[in-house]
């Protein structure tokens, strides 16, 4: 309800304070780990986990901002993509004799790098197709956001059903080769895969940034997220923007799913669904519709989840993400970078 804040675009805001906040938090973490209050290795793990959460939550926040509903099937996009990559690596690539493991220092092989663009295209098409069949109809009917969210819940359940029907409900092992860790000072061990994951996420985030700030479609997308009605009036084809949003969202979810599979080395039909709480925590923390905020939120969720395992049972990690979400909703429901109510 604060009109004065609405006029100031949140894209300007991020150039000011939040960077300082992030640096400050990083400083605190470094000091704490120097004083050996927290293990630096957990922080590094948290950064890797945060990168994967960031990857998926950037897509989720775009959908939430542009289509104004909580997309419950986002985690299952991740699951589906991870399983598609598993299929590509173990069936067609296996038969033509491509080795799925052992590229340089990494646990996976170069076929994964071929499979990722493919699965991005597949998941993006699925996302656009689902919008065509389901969400567009509801939009045109003028359904409220809760009905849309409920429909996406149905999609999520059906998607998991498909994965379970094809691959079964048991744990699948992702093809991998055990590799040495990089040993760094202060008892920090980094698996080479973590560097790959961080690299992919950095490149994707930077590409998204360029897309949103340098291209016409990206600018139209930001305008739609800001005010859909106004965007329509100024002649932006919002349906096209929505298709692009789904494509980006699906593609990012696909990459996130594959990275999660690489990191965890095993696949479960419920892996994406159980990722939903950290994802939404990151999205709400960063401010809905703001991809930069989502990255910051994801890092907070990822690091706090991993660092908390120093004191409490690791299975409570989702509860930590959830607690952060609740505290945020109570104190600052618009998120760290958000300015809208």
């Amino acid at each position, binding site marked *: 309800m604060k009109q004065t804040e609405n006029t100031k675009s949140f894209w300007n805001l991020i150039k000011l304070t939040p960077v300082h906040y992030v640096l400050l938090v990083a400083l605190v973490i470094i000091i704490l780990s120097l004083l050996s209050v927290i293990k630096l290795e957990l922080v590094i793990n948290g950064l890797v986990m945060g990168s994967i959460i960031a990857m998926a939550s950037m897509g989720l926040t775009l959908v939430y901002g542009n289509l104004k509903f909580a997309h419950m099937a986002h985690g299952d996009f991740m699951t589906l993509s991870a399983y598609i990559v598993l299929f590509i690596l173990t069936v067609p690539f296996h038969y033509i004799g491509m080795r799925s493991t052992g590229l340089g220092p990494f646990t996976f092989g170069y076929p994964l790098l071929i499979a990722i663009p493919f699965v991005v295209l597949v998941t993006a098409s699925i996302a656009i197709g689902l919008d065509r069949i389901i969400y567009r109809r509801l939009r045109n009917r003028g359904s409220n956001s*809760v009905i849309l*969210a*409920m429909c996406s819940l149905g*999609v999520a359940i059906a998607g998991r*059903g498909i994965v379970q*029907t094809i691959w079964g409900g048991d744990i699948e092992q992702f093809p991998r080769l055990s590799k040495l860790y990089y040993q760094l000072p202060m008892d920090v061990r980094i698996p080479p895969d973590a560097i790959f994951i961080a690299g992919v996420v950095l490149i994707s985030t930077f590409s998204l940034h360029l897309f949103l700030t340098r291209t016409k479609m990206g600018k139209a997308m930001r305008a739609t997220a800001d005010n859909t009605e106004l965007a329509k009036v100024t002649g932006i084809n919002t349906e096209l923007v929505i298709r692009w949003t789904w494509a980006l969202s699906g593609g990012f979810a696909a990459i996130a799913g594959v990275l999660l599979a690489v990191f965890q080395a095993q696949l479960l039909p419920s892996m994406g669904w159980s990722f939903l*709480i950290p994802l939404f925590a990151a999205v709400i923390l960063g401010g809905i519709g703001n991809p930069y905020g989502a990255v910051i939120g994801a890092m907070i969720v990822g690091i706090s989840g991993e660092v908390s395992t120093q004191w409490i*049972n690791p299975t409570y990690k989702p509860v930590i993400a959830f607690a952060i979400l*609740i505290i945020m909703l109570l104190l600052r429901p618009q998120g760290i970078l958000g300015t809208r109510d």
Partner: protein
Amino acid sequence: MDIFGLIDYTVGWAVVAGIYAVFSLGLNVHWGFTGLFNIGIAGFFAIGAYTSALITTPPPKEALFEDFIFGGNLPEYLGFLNFGIDLWFLLAILAAAAMAGIIAIPIGLVTIRLKGDYLAITTLGVAEAIRLIFLNEKWLANGSRGLYNIPKFLGDVVTPANYNYLYLIVVLIVLGFLYVMVTRAINSPWGRVLKSIREDEMTAQANGKNVLNFKLQAFIFGAAIMGIGGALYAHNIRFVSPISFDPLYATFVIWAMLMVGGSGNNKGAILGAFVVWGIWAGTGFLPGFIASPSIRLFMIGLLIVVVILLRPDGIMGEERKISQKIP
């Protein structure tokens, strides 16, 4: 399967469907009448089932390597009150309802102010947190091994083979009681306020209704009904463990039931439970891979989507209250 076997099977099926109908009624209070998007039914389900199980099971025997510390052993303590009618069952159900309602208060206070889909995300988180607590805190309820030895209500009246018949009657009585209670509550002025909140919060507020308060009351009321459902479940299966409260069986199926039956209509909620559970059990007899639980998972999801797209009112839809007298 001979005819008696078929009847036995149907009765066992109807018990489960009836218990699901209780949850469907509770969800109808949340979603159908008040518009609260709760996808954490599993949480209240678990609280109801565990409360009822914990206060009625005998204390744990250390010889069985059991780590948990609590066992209310209510049937033993209430033995002096037992005039052949197991009074403890009523107490267990009331305790389950009360506990689910009490747990709903802080959750409601935090989440009820939030918009629809925020509420969904937070209830999802609450259900997961409750499941993780029961899974990890072994002292509370034996962790993943769960609680067993849950006593039967009127277990010594009929032979175990015929027990389902008796329990079906019990479930139907509880269901009928809840149906009458919910229907009366919804037709009262209190219920009309809930419906007006669902339709337009601003208008309700403008008419001087304390929207947050009413939503909180509806949330607690629905949660208590779900707690009763949990207690009925615990004394039917007579074993509870965190696996029982998987979101699929404990949340999504119930959503599909309410959507199919018709949200906003209590008869529809009950009908939906029997229809969806009928489809669920019926597909189990189909040949080949169609009978697999994964396909059913897919179907439940598809059912929700198809109902929303093609028939948003479900089978029955909401009864029109004012315009029904107008031709």
